[in-house]
Each structure stands twice: as C-alpha cells, then as structure tokens.
C-alpha cells in the first residue's frame, strides 16, 4: 500500500508541479490557532510539517526560534502536539502530516512510545533534525514498522558515498538542505547550484521523493520548481510574527501566504 505521503507526491507529479510543503510550529501562537492555521493552509499545501518545539535547538534560525519560543511560553507539551495532529487529521481537507523536531524530545518520551503515539494520532512522517545516519538506523526501522515515513536529510556537505548509503536506507521521502545554514537563512547559493546537487540525489535513485528546504520564500520558490517538493518554513513563521506584531489574524495571513506560494509553482 502506498503511503499518504507518496500519494501526495504522485498527485503533484500528475499536475506537473512540485509538492508544496509547509512548516509551522505546533502551539504557535496558541494551540487552537496553530490547528486553525493547519486547517486553513491545507487548501493550498500538499504536505504539512509541524514542529514540536524544543528550547535548546541547534539548527533553527531566528524565525523558527521565535515560533518555538511563543509555543513554549504558552506551555505547549508533546501531548498537546499529538492532540493538534489528531484533531487536524479529523478535518475534512486533511493532508499528510510530518512531525519535525529534536531527538531529545523523542528520547525523553521514549522512542517506542513516541512512534506508537504518532501512528495512533495519524502522523505520516517524522523528521528528527539531530539523529543522522547511521545512528538513526534502529529508529528508522521502528518508524517503518509503524507505517511512518522517516525522512532523512541530505546536505551540501554530504559526500557522495554517504549519500548513497543514506538513500539506500531511506523511506519514500528525502529532504535536501539547500545550503550551509540554519533554517531561514538568506538563499546564499544559486538555484542552479542547488538543483545540480538535487540532481545528484535523483541520479542515485530517481524514485525517491526529494524535497528542497532552507531559504525558500515567495521570491525564490519559482526558481526551484523542478524539484519533487519545496518546503517553506521560516517565511511562514515570520508571517505569524509579523501578523502578531500588526495585530492581524495569523490564520488569514498564512492562508494568503501559502496561496501565493502555491500560485508561484502551479
């Protein structure tokens, strides 16, 4: 049986466009609001990544740090994150949902318990930022057993030899980090170069759905539309920050932003 994630990519491929993946933080700026945001942006996004906040993140840029900080300040707990996913997956237009975060949170909760809970509430995939290959082998197996896609990351520093091993051990989605940066940095590499690296991955195994993330905004997204999927995270987190600052409704703001992103790649 094909996973929901795989089906989402397939659908986009048929429509001759990349999948649009969004990233927002669970509980930003409240539990209720973050659920409303997910429901609202599902109108245009294909796969939704949802961050579970940790207070010592080592790879997040300032925008996502701000979002995490807001969520933590309001007391977000893992149990709330699971509840948000559960409620979201019940909504009528629900898309595949990928949880993303740091290993400490999973470790403290208990790997098995965490994955089981993910399955129970309808999580489709997991990205654990700081659990790289080969340390992730066991965890990856555990995910597979529970029909959850464990998404591995590849970066410009990943050697070809290592790339092959990671791809061989990967499930049906891979995440290519566009440049040396924390999340949300300014795109400091040309789209041409990013796509060149992206093609290296596709040449090793073209059947893996490979998305590109980091530094993608409304301005840059169109230049990368040859990819299987594109992730926009920090720009959306900033959208929430901006709307809060201007006393606007972040749900409406994010809906508009995601609509505009989708229009750029349709």
């Amino acid at each position, binding site marked *: 049986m094909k996973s929901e994630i795989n089906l989402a990519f397939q659908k986009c491929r048929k429509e001759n466009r990349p999948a649009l993946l969004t990233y927002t933080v669970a509980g930003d700026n409240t539990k209720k609001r973050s659920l409303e945001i997910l429901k609202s942006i599902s109108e245009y996004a294909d796969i939704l990544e949802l961050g579970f906040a940790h207070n010592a993140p080592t790879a997040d840029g300032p925008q996502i740090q701000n979002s995490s900080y807001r969520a933590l300040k309001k007391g977000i707990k893992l149990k709330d994150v699971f509840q948000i996913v559960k409620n979201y997956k019940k909504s009528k237009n629900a898309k595949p949902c990928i949880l993303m975060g740091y290993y400490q949170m999973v470790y*403290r909760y208990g790997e098995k318990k965490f994955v089981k809970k993910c399955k129970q509430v309808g999580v489709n995939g997991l990205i654990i930022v700081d659990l790289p290959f080969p340390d992730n082998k066991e965890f990856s197996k555990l995910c597979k057993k529970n029909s959850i896609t464990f998404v591995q990351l590849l970066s410009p520093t990943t050697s070809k030899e290592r790339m092959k091993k990671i791809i061989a051990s990967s499930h049906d989605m891979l995440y290519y980090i566009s440049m040396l940066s924390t999340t949300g940095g300014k795109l400091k590499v040309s789209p041409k170069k990013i796509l060149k690296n992206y093609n290296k991955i596709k040449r090793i195994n073209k059947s893996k759905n490979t998305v590109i993330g980091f530094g993608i905004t409304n301005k840059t997204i169109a230049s990368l539309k040859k990819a299987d999927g594109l992730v926009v995270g920090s720009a959306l987190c900033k959208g929430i920050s901006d709307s809060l600052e201007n006393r606007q409704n972040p749900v409406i703001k994010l809906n508009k932003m995601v609509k505009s992103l989708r229009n750029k790649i349709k």
Partner: protein
Amino acid sequence: MKIKKGIPLIDQHDKNGFYAGKFGGNFVAETLKKPIDDLTKLFEKYRKDKNFLKERDDLYENYIGTPTRFIKLQNLSDHLGGAQIYAKMVSDCKGGAHKCYNAITHAMLCKRAKKKYICTDTGAGYNGKMFSMVAKKFGLGCKVFMGARDIERQKPNCDAIKKNGAEIIPVNSGSKTLVDAVSECIRYWVANCDKVHMGIGSLVGPNIFVKICGFSTEQISRELKIQIEEEFGEIPNKLKLINCVGGGSSAYGFWSEFIDYKKNQVELIGVEAGGPSKSKLHAAPLSKNSKIGILHGAAAYCVQNSDGQINKTESISSGLDYPSVSPIHCLLKDAGRARYTYATDEEALQAFKLVTELEEISPSLEPAHAFAEAIKIAPKLDSSNIIVVDSCGDSIKDKDIIKKKLGNYSR
C-alpha cells in the same frame, strides 16, 4: 559498567562515540557530519604527531607558563585541623584559567585545517578570553558567543576578549547564559562550517569535542602527578582530588592520570553548582540525580523537565551554570569511580572568603565550590589525608559579584 585501565578515558568510546553505550554520541544535524568527520581525522592524525606535540608542549611551557604551582595551604590546613590541604594553581596559566590548554589545541588544529576563523562559546568568559588570546597569537579571526546575562556579570573577561581583537556575539535567547551561548555557537557553525573552525569550551558536545578538550586539559594531571611524587615521594595512600564540575573540563584534566588508581587510595570528588540555598534552581545534574538527556550533540545527565525541555539553571558562577555535563563524568559517576556533590552559592562565597583570608591565593567562584567541599570534609579527616584542590580560575573576573555579596573585594 567498567572503566578500562591503561587507556585514556576519552578514548573509551564505541564506534558511534558513546561511552558505556549510552553517554555522548553525535546528535548533530546532517550538515555537521562532514565537518565533524574531517575534524576527527585531523585530530587523530596530529595527536600522535611528534612535531605537533612538540609545538604544543613549547606553547604550554613558554606561552602558558606550565607547570603551574603545586602549593600547600598550611594556614587553611591548620585552621581546619584535619587533612592536609594543597592547591594546584592552574589559575597561574596565562590568562588566568585552565581554558588555555583546549584553546591552544583548537587553534593549532584550525591552522592545520587551513581555516582563518575560529568560534567558541563562553560562560565565565575565561574560555572566550583564552580563545581570543590564542587566536590573536595565531592570526585567526575569532568570534565568541556569550549569553547576555554572563556579559553583564563577567565584565573583566569581556573587556579582555575585546582587547584581544575578538568579537563578542551576545546571545539573547533562553536564559541568556552558557547553555544558550553553546546552542548559538553550534548554529553559527552549521551555517559557516566550510570556513570556520569551532572549539567548544568544555568537555561537552559531539564526541570529537569531548576528546580534543580532554586531550588538552590532561596536561594538568601530568604535572600534578610529578609534583605529588616530588612532594611525598610516592602517591599518598589517602589522596583526595577535589575539582568543581560545570561541563567538567578541568576536573577531567585534573584526574586523568589518577583514574586507574583504586578509589580508596585516590578519591575523585567533583563539586557541582548547587545554586542559591533558598532556590530550587541549580546546575548539578550529577549530584541531584537528573535523568539522561540530549543536549548540544551528546547524551548525558541533564537538568530537564518531564517533557524533555531543558530546565533553567542558576548559579553564582557562570562557568558552572550549565544544565548538562560531560559524558565522561556520567561514565565516572555510573562506574562509581568519582563521587559528585554540590556546593551552594553561599557555601562557595564563604569558602572564597575563608581561603582568601588565610592564604595568598584568590580562586574564582568556580573553584570556590571545590574549596567549599574541602572545607567541609577536611576537619573530619586526620592529617594522613591529603586533599588537593584544583584552583582552576582566578577571582578577578568575579570582583563585582564578590564586592556585592561580601561587601568588599581585595587581592
């Protein structure tokens, strides 16, 4: 859990960088895997290279000014009327603390990696000061990440860092202390690892940083062993080595030559920051039985809540104000080789007061925690017991805090 004899503790990890199968490791973003692999290869190549070691030893001897003194604290011993108390004056080092050893190794590796920039974190400011000092000597650009709260409370070291031409990057996230400085430094490295060498300031972080730091601070123990043998003709039968523990770089360096001795001959005592006596906050994951958590790339005992968030810590000493601790000390604790306890802010201050009143030394608030434990146990022991305290930092950086808390500061 057993510690192997004859092998440096820092090398007793498995192929994935874990000590005892569960402490340490490399929990890093994919982007950092290659830079860490490259650094590991570089370090393994040079750690046994004769020219590298010769250059390092020359720097230690002529630049840092080793060996540092080993002195008897006769007045303090007489006053307490029990064990004989000695101090290893690591604060004699150029710059005033043990952080120079690690900084030199990192600068030497940075040069050999052909990188022109180096970055590091700092809490008390000594690590930042030493990196800036060594960077200047080696002609490297240097960025020091420091929590905004620590910048306020450790001004003398900040002035020194700036004077050495390094840039201090204030970190305003979280508790604005060392934990946030290390996170920010790692984030900076993620984005700049192609051009910049990172040195973590303690025995923490991904495995290679634990190893480089331990390899560097072992110098303290090598000197101490010779000095103890010179003083007593042998290693005494009842020796106690007391050291403060934040990340644990000086404690490992102080103990490394003595780990293979039986614990009833050489007792290793680590003193963590117990925080203010009236507060529940502390920075003592080992002695207050915190659970294992993953912070800054390594699994170790870590002050955290039930959901996995890192808890706020509190200590009068910036250098010990860290929620986690080295995997090496987790190993030493679980193997029962070292004993860990804590001293409160007040105990550390009182220890500082007593030691400086009686002796011609002036330990910073970090080693003052170790002195507090020495003062606690010395009266209960007879004079055949030898206590050695690592006076690993100089108090000048703490003059404002001490003046505020004790009414005056003089030295």
